[in-house]
């Protein structure tokens, strides 16, 4: 009996891993194609697409595409801009959206439920519908910075950051998570004399690792992939992010090899960010033991 059942389990395990491996391969192949192609000259790259060679480092392999890409566009600047804008937006967003959600979840005030419904309702509004009104608005907004007073936010970092900090989805994620936290923990903190700010910093945030990681990943993806908005609000190269920068490679003749090299470079921050967060995510679940 025992032998049979353990055989069964072994078989099931093998099947499970086979399926998982297949899925992983399907997801990884485009990336492999991208990286391999970035080392090949255009002619060979296009010829190889009809065979398995597309996924193999064969033929005329070099780093020329990378040198050419850096010659054609300020790649380093674009990556810097995107990482800066994305990083700051993620940080501000985690902080402000979690505070808003804290208020929705734990504080009692008039109109709370209605306002929360409105916030959630914004989820179904596509960005395209508000892009033009938003553009008109930011073009007239005042700002006081190191250079003094100015009007209009076009061609800045802040125009890429500030409108994206608060969003319904992030607030909603936090609200849901906070509502699942044991209410007694909050009440015990109040009895112990903690202020709302202390409850936020010392109790709720330390227990929110999983939702912080989730919200950060989602926000990161949105921000790093920004295209339409920076396209219309940033005309100066100085503030241009990576996705808009891709346009440099689609001029008269499409430079496929350089595109693949450029894409490979701009993928690195995504993977790095994801790996870091994934570890933090697992560690926080393991150490807080909030779930289970």
């Amino acid at each position, binding site marked *: 009996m025992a032998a049979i059942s353990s055989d069964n389990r072994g078989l099931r395990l093998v099947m499970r891993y086979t399926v998982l491996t297949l899925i992983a391969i399907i997801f990884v192949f485009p990336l492999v194609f991208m990286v391999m192609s970035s080392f090949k000259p255009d002619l060979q790259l296009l010829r190889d697409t009809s065979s398995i060679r597309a996924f193999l480092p064969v033929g005329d392999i070099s780093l020329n595409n990378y040198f050419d890409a850096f010659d054609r566009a300020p790649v380093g600047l674009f990556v810097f801009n995107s990482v800066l804008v994305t990083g700051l937006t993620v940080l501000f967003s985690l902080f402000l959206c979690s505070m808003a959600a804290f208020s929705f979840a734990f504080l009692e005030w008039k109109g709370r439920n209605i306002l929360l419904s409105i916030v959630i309702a914004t989820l179904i509004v596509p960005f395209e519908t508000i892009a033009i009104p938003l553009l008109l608005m930011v073009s007239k907004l005042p700002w006081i910075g190191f250079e003094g007073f100015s009007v209009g936010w076009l061609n800045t970092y802040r125009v890429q950051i500030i409108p994206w900090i608060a969003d319904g989805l992030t607030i909603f994620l936090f609200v849901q998570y906070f509502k699942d936290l044991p209410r007694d923990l909050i*009440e*015990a903190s*109040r009895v*112990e004399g*903690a202020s709302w700010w202390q409850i936020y910093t010392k109790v709720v945030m330390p227990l929110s690792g999983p939702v912080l990681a989730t919200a950060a990943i989602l926000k990161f993806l949105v921000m790093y992939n920004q295209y339409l908005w920076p396209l219309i609000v940033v005309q100066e190269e100085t503030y241009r992010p990576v996705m808009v920068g891709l346009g440099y490679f689609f001029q008269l003749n499409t430079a496929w090899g350089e595109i693949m090299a450029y894409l490979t470079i701009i993928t690195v921050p995504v993977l790095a960010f994801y790996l870091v967060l994934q570890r933090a995510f697992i560690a926080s679940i393991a150490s807080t033991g909030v779930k289970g």
Partner: protein
Amino acid sequence: MAQVKLRDIRKSYGKVEVIKGVDIDVDDGEFVVFVGPSGCGKSTLLRMIAGLEDITAGTLEIDGIRMNDLEPSKRGIAMVFQSYAIFPHMTVRENVAFGLTINKAGKAEKAEKVAEAARILQMEHLLDRRPSELSGGQRQRVAIGRAIVRDPKVFLFDEPLSNLDAALRMDMRMEIGKLHQDLGASMIYVTHDQVEAMTLADKIVVLKDGMVMQAGAPMELYHEPDNLFVAGFLGSPSMNFLEVTVDAVNADNVTVHNTALDPIDVPHKGRSFTVGQTATLGIRPQYLHPSDQASGKLHGKVILTERLGSETVIDVSLAEGAKLIAALAEDTILAPGTAAHFEFDPNQAHIFPETR
């Protein structure tokens, strides 16, 4: 140590009133237990004392000072929750010291108070563990430790034992009793378990539907229940109730009978009755004694005998489908199916004008 005074306390959620005018006094160092069936408003009442719920109407005083609008932390209370509510991301030490940390207490004071609480609760060896590495009983200890270091005037417990298994519950019950003796602080303890109430309390407050049914010392409530509800709620096995007819009323007694009960005079203790009305006679199973047909006052038939060792519990069916339980001394055996006759001291019986 402190006195707690509740005067005409009310609580409404929207239009629904769940606490309907409650007066309770807790004396210095007294252990008061709020007991009642689930949903009767015990937790709501406790949470109002703690400041976790607003008081809709009435006055709450601790040590003569009105507390209605004070923050929980300003009321001099500490609370132990049913779910323990200890912080999963902190060690036991950090949990116990949480209130001190929040209030920026000095390092030395913190260490000293935590050590003292750990000593009282015998959990010195647990201080560096995380809650996930503790058993239910140990978590409860941490929660109590956190309450102790606050050095509160009043301890509040909301069903602190109901998440523990039966054996542990008894241990912790004794420990909480001992804690009360050692600290001498006022304590308010909420439970739906009448055994916990009877064993721990200096004073029991029986609640039903947001109202106080009776308040007093455990044995006072046990022997002199004011009403049918209190009579049926306290004591195990619970009191027998018989529907009876009132034959006569005089200065001290009423005479009652029914088909299974011979006419008997029972002290009415000032409750008013009219001749011919239906009333309820209560008699505890322990106060029924087997007898012969002639001297017996209650007559029925044995259905079931359960020997528990310390006593034998007999289920008896009376005429008209009524049932009765008698708890007899250990060596009494009555065979099922045989006729049973019981006598009892009318002074140990209770007569209530209401019926169930």
